[in-house]
């Protein structure tokens, strides 16, 4: 990205200058000079386009891990006011609706894992349905699937997948309101029949990670994180159902926009006013997909517990938090001193509620929401905490991942999957995958430096670093 096109507010906050008479809102980017310079110019084009959408409140925002997406940049955040004609955009949520990370803390240490890491990796690959074309053991009929879409993780717990305590530590306590299963097409439901409890492929993973470094002892204690102990992170989303909803509404909302008098700077920003029938139709379907994703991660967490429990009978796995990063959520935020209902799109961005937020579980009320930044399989991940500052700067939002530094095609030209597996094995990181092509595409070198992203997230006031995680075992989809 040509950094000369930006105005620096401070070393971690940048804005795109507007010409006189330009009616668009502010476009703001967070990150270091180096991170922004490394971003594709398309990020700037896309976030500037978002700033032109109707009913936007404040600035269109790009997180430090932003990269070229479709419509919105990945790492894009934008809030819309339904009373001001604000829109909801299928492109602002993405295909993998409610893709996110479930993180489980354990009482195991990295030394415990080392005693049987290979066996654990093999068992996880065997038990976790992962990769393209792989279905789960669960088969749901139409009524059961509607119950998933209405009940989310609560449905899964009621079926015996996991424990009721898990629900306390999932966004919206495991079930988002406003889901309308009837708004989800028959084809979308058919695609999901065999996909509950599956990981998917691409950048989805299940990782066993060592807590490498504690950055904030007070918050880490509240989260139950101990250096040298192990956490398990599961990254996946709403699978075929979410993909189908995204697919259908992307085209139908693109067509509806012109009919509804919305001029789109990019067709991919397909949207409709929140209060229009089209907007409500999408909102109900999208919320159903969020519940599908929450149920999916709940089932996968249950399988992981079972598998790890068989390898380590004394293991106890508790949900640290489950947070989505492809959503549009109805939230109350302060605008000019007044609390308002806004629809906050986070496309590749994590919600990051501040200490004291009523939506947080009691245990985290004083320290803020756990924010999980998933990194590459070689370099690690981060747990951060929401801050009060983030509410003002980004509607309580933060980064979601390391962000790609190069395309998948470039990665395939540079690396071979088998060599990546061997190289990481030599570093004590065991990779298991059904797809060597997928491993090459996801090579650690294809991602940005997670340290830089985490630091920039903190310095920009979006979230505070709590703990750094290093992968020990990674099952790639």
């Amino acid at each position, binding site marked *: 990205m040509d950094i000369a096109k930006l105005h620096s507010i401070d070393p971690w906050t940048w804005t795109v200058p507007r010409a006189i008479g330009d009616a668009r809102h502010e476009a703001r980017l967070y990150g270091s000079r180096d991170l922004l310079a490394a971003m594709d110019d398309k990020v700037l084009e896309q976030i500037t386009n978002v700033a032109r959408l109707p009913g936007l409140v404040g600035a269109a925002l790009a997180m430090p891990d932003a990269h070229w997406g479709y*419509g919105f940049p990945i790492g894009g955040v934008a809030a819309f006011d339904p009373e001001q004609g604000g829109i909801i955009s299928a492109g602002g949520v993405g295909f993998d609706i409610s893709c996110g990370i479930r993180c489980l803390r354990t009482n195991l240490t990295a030394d415990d894992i080392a005693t049987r890491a290979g066996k654990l990796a093999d068992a996880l690959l065997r038990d976790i349905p992962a990769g393209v*074309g792989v279905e789960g053991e669960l088969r749901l009929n139409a009524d059961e699937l509607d119950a998933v879409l209405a009940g989310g993780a609560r449905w899964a717990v009621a079926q015996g997948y996991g424990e009721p305590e898990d629900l306390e530590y999932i966004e919206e306590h495991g079930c988002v309101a406003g889901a309308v299963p009837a708004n989800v097409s028959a084809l979308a439901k058919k695609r999901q029949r065999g996909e509950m409890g599956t990981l998917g492929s691409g950048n989805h993973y299940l990782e066993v990670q060592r807590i490498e470094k504690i950055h904030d002892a007070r918050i880490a204690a509240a989260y139950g994180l101990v250096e040298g102990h192990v956490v398990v992170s599961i990254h996946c989303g709403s699978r075929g159902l979410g993909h189908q909803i995204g*697919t259908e509404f*992307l*085209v139908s909302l693109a067509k509806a926009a012109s009919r509804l008098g919305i001029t789109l700077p990019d067709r991919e920003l397909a949207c409709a006013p929140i209060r229009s029938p089209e907007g409500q139709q999408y909102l109900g379907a999208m919320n159903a997909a969020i519940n599908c994703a929450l149920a999916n991660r709940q089932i996968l967490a249950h399988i992981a517990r079972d598998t790890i429990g068989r390898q380590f009978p004394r293991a106890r796995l508790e949900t640290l938090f489950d947070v989505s990063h492809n959503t549009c959520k109805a939230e109350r935020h302060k605008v000019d001193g007044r609390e308002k209902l806004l629809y906050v799109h986070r496309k590749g961005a994590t919600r990051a509620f501040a200490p004291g937020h009523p939506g947080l579980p009691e245990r985290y009320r004083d320290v803020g929401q756990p924010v999980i930044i998933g990194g590459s399989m070689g370099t690690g991940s981060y747990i951060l905490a929401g801050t009060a500052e983030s509410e003002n700067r980004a509607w309580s939002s933060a980064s979601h991942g390391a962000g790609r530094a190069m395309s*998948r095609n470039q990665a395939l030209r540079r690396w071979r999957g088998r060599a990546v597996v061997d190289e990481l094995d030599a570093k004590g990181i065991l990779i298991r995958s059904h*797809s060597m092509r997928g491993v090459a595409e996801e090579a650690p070198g294809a991602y940005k430096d997670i340290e830089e992203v985490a630091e920039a997230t903190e310095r920009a006031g979006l979230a505070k670093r709590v703990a750094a995680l290093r992968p020990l075992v990674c099952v790639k989809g």
Partner: protein
Amino acid sequence: MPAGLPRYDYFDHDADTGVIGRGATLQDAFVHAAEATFALMCDPISVAQDERIDIEFKEDDVELALVTWLNLLLAHANERGLALGCFELAREANVWRGAAWGEPWRTDMERGTQVKGATLTALHVTPQGEGWEARCVVDL
């Protein structure tokens, strides 16, 4: 088909990937874009043509037709648990009728990365020389 260029190809995108199909006719270009899309998930040569999927839709806008064609193939392949390797497509005015052949995923198939959907990003369907080129970004 534009001379000297492969019938299907890819272009770079930060997070996902772009697919390109080229052909003597618009329909051929769409068929080859489908080959590019499904080749991301498995080697099309290794896929037996045991089962058939039929696709029919109406669309006036040729660019949206490309996205709809690819997304219907992805949806029905996913719904039926099939890997696809062979495609055909015909068009009468705004009615598009296509078919695809494949087989259920086998455990010994070399797997690539699942394509979640075809997007409107970098979406172009254009005449190229004596033929057509169809391209868009697909979400992985």
